[in-house]
């Protein structure tokens, strides 16, 4: 252990570098990425209207069934087109491409059953327009259900109880985790450096083990800087 400590303090500039760089990179990443924008809304499920939908599992809660049906709808270019139609801002972001919009919605929109009858809808985006997009999505989804089931009552499958609003893009917990991982990576790399450097130096004569390695006792260790001078010159 002493040998490793010795190496650490001998090469402390190099050893400390990863411990500083990795967490700094994690912080920089968090700042630069900024976590983007995250819009969120809560909807309340209307159980009677839910029965009309395609994917119903009797073992699931109403919220879980609605989340499933909404998720199935996300990949559809037709639905994406409807959302773009309802939100000209989104159409501009998507360059009026239904395919792009369908992929974007599929990737960034999540439906989570947060209660037996409550579904939380989240849209994560790099654009501050996440809010109107989510509003349009929530408005268009019941209409889409009604068209698919040919039942106008499907438009009442849910009602928005918490209107779309921005929430923190990343939680403190996540930030701490990223920071912690950065620190861990830095410490591990530093440890690796110290370990390799120690094994390299192990090939050189050191006070701790030269006696064991040569079978001779160390009679004296002349400290660095206690050299001899003859006249002006060091010997």
């Amino acid at each position: 252990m002493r040998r490793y400590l010795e190496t650490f303090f001998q090469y402390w500039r190099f050893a400390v570098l990863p411990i500083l760089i990795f967490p700094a990179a994690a912080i920089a990443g968090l700042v630069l990425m900024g976590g983007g924008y995250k819009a969120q809304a809560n909807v309340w499920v209307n159980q009677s209207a839910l029965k009309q939908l395609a994917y119903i599992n009797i073992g699931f809660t109403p919220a879980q069934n609605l989340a499933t049906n909404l998720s199935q709808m996300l990949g559809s270019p037709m639905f994406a087109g409807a959302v773009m139609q309802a939100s000209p801002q989104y159409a501009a972001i998507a360059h009026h491409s239904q395919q792009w919009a369908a992929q974007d919605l599929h990737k960034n929109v999540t439906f989570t059953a947060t209660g037996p009858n409550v579904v939380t809808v989240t849209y994560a985006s790099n654009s501050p327009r996440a809010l109107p997009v989510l509003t349009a999505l929530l408005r268009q989804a019941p209409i889409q259900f009604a068209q698919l089931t040919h039942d106008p009552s499907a438009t009442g499958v849910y009602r928005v109880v918490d209107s779309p609003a921005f929430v923190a893009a990343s939680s403190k917990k996540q930030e701490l985790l990223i920071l912690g991982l950065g620190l861990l990576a830095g410490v591990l790399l530093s440890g690796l450096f110290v370990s390799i450097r120690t094994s390299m130096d192990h090939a050189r004569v050191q006070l701790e083990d030269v006696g064991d390695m040569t079978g001779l006792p160390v009679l004296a260790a002349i400290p660095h800087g206690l050299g001899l001078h003859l006249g002006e010159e060091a010997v």
Partner: protein
Amino acid sequence: MAIAEHMEEAEEYSSPLSLPDEAYEVYRHLYGKLQLHPGSRAVVGITSAIRGEGRTTVALGLAATIAQDSAEPVLVVEADIENPQLHELLGGPRRGLVDAVTDGEPLAGVMTPITPNLLVVPAGSHPENVGAFFYRLATSRLPQGDGWWPAVVIVDLPPIMNYGYGPMIAGIADVLLMVTRANVTPTTLVREAVARLEGNRPRGLVLNDHRTYLPSWISRAG
């Protein structure tokens, strides 16, 4: 030359040899561990695996300490003839070990005093045949002659791994020390050098230029 003449000659010198105070204490410990009997007239050989380990430093440091603490005359002999340092430090070429051995004369004739009781024999002229010189030195040992001989003789031997005759020349010493430089010399070389000295095992190692990078509070904690 009698000892009295050496002493008189040395009085004229202002000693150019200087050691930090802490160094004297280190060499005192080293001398104590050698357990040389007073009056034994032992020849202490200082060798190393390779060049640059600090043999001359240790030889002169040990000699200066013994000379300062005792009234006994101490002699340092430079036997590393291919890398001589003493003649330069003594202010120019001087007759030395090579000349004495080649001419078959006693060492007393080529001794140069540094302090009243510290004398040195520099390497001297470069021999035509280094191998032949080393062979002769190893077989005939240091030419003492019939006259005066110092109480302690310290020989700055050539490095073991650089010369085939290295281990043989080490045989001229009654007590052998191996100097090695901390954090520089490969351990394998030191081990190999010790193995070559099988018939004349060194009394111990002197670790030169040792330094610790640990903060004092960690060192103190053990």
